[in-house]
């Protein structure tokens, strides 16, 4: 009587396949190709994530700076007291978003296929 039988290896391999399939399905989200910048709910700019540039927008508290690089974007500078949207770091997956609520600025990444139809904040 052996501990590991032929069928066990098949089951283990199938399990491994399932796990990697789930990983691709859950984490391999589509990369975004453009960003949506909103101030007080209004879209002010939709830059493509093609080349490096800085975008500055004015909110109630002051200037928020958004940095665009090929394939990713981030809030580089924001007057919000807790800096949560700055700490969010680089965003690259479609559907990712950084919200600077005190300054009413939001940065959202859009892909060819949106992960969500709409997001309510």
């Amino acid at each position, binding site marked *: 009587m052996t*501990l*590991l039988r032929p*069928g066990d290896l098949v*089951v*283990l391999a199938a399990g491994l396949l399932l796990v990697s399939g789930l990983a691709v399905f859950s*984490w391999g989200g589509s990369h975004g190709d453009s960003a949506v910048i909103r101030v007080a709910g209004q879209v002010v700019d939709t830059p493509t994530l093609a080349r490096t540039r800085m975008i500055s927008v004015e909110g109630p508290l002051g200037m928020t700076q958004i940095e665009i690089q090929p394939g990713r974007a981030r809030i580089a500078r924001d007057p919000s007291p807790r800096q949560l949207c700055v700490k969010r770091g680089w965003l690259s997956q479609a559907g990712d978003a950084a919200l600077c609520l005190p300054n009413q600025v939001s940065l959202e990444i859009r892909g060819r296929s949106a992960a969500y139809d709409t997001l309510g904040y």
Partner: protein
Amino acid sequence: MTRSVIELPVSAADRRIAGLAAVAVGLTLAEAAIPSPVPGVKPGLANIVILLVMLQYGWKTAAWVAALRVLAGSLLLGSFLSPGFWLSTAGAVSSLIVLATAQHLPRQWFGAVSLSVLAAFGHIAGQLALAWLWLLPTAALLNLLPVFAAAALLFGAVNGFIVARLLAADASPKGQSAPCIPL
């Protein structure tokens, strides 16, 4: 006033189920003390007992032991009727359903490791289905799906290996009649 004595006849099978369930509950309690990085990711040591019981005494006994394990374990941990209790129940029920089907796989090809891995996947599938339908109907749970599945594969394989070892020790000629569970 007359005193009436209610006597419940206890069969040998009842005693066996109670004893096996006590072992499973003990492992559940021991496991509750192990810290876990992600809530819900646990080795599932009690499933070793459930699988051993099924292979030695049949599915029905295993179902009894699993039910008593969830009930008594939750009473002792103070989680009876809490969300955690229902998640345990969902996991136990779905893994038992999987085992009811998987036990008919040809034994010479599929050993304890297969059954354990399949049951572990069934367990996590049941738990996640309930959690998703009832507690967290958001995409956040979906992101953790690979983590739970990987844990199920790993712990299912390890537990299955332990069961296979215990069964092999049991079947070895010079060993005692039942070294795995002293009952």
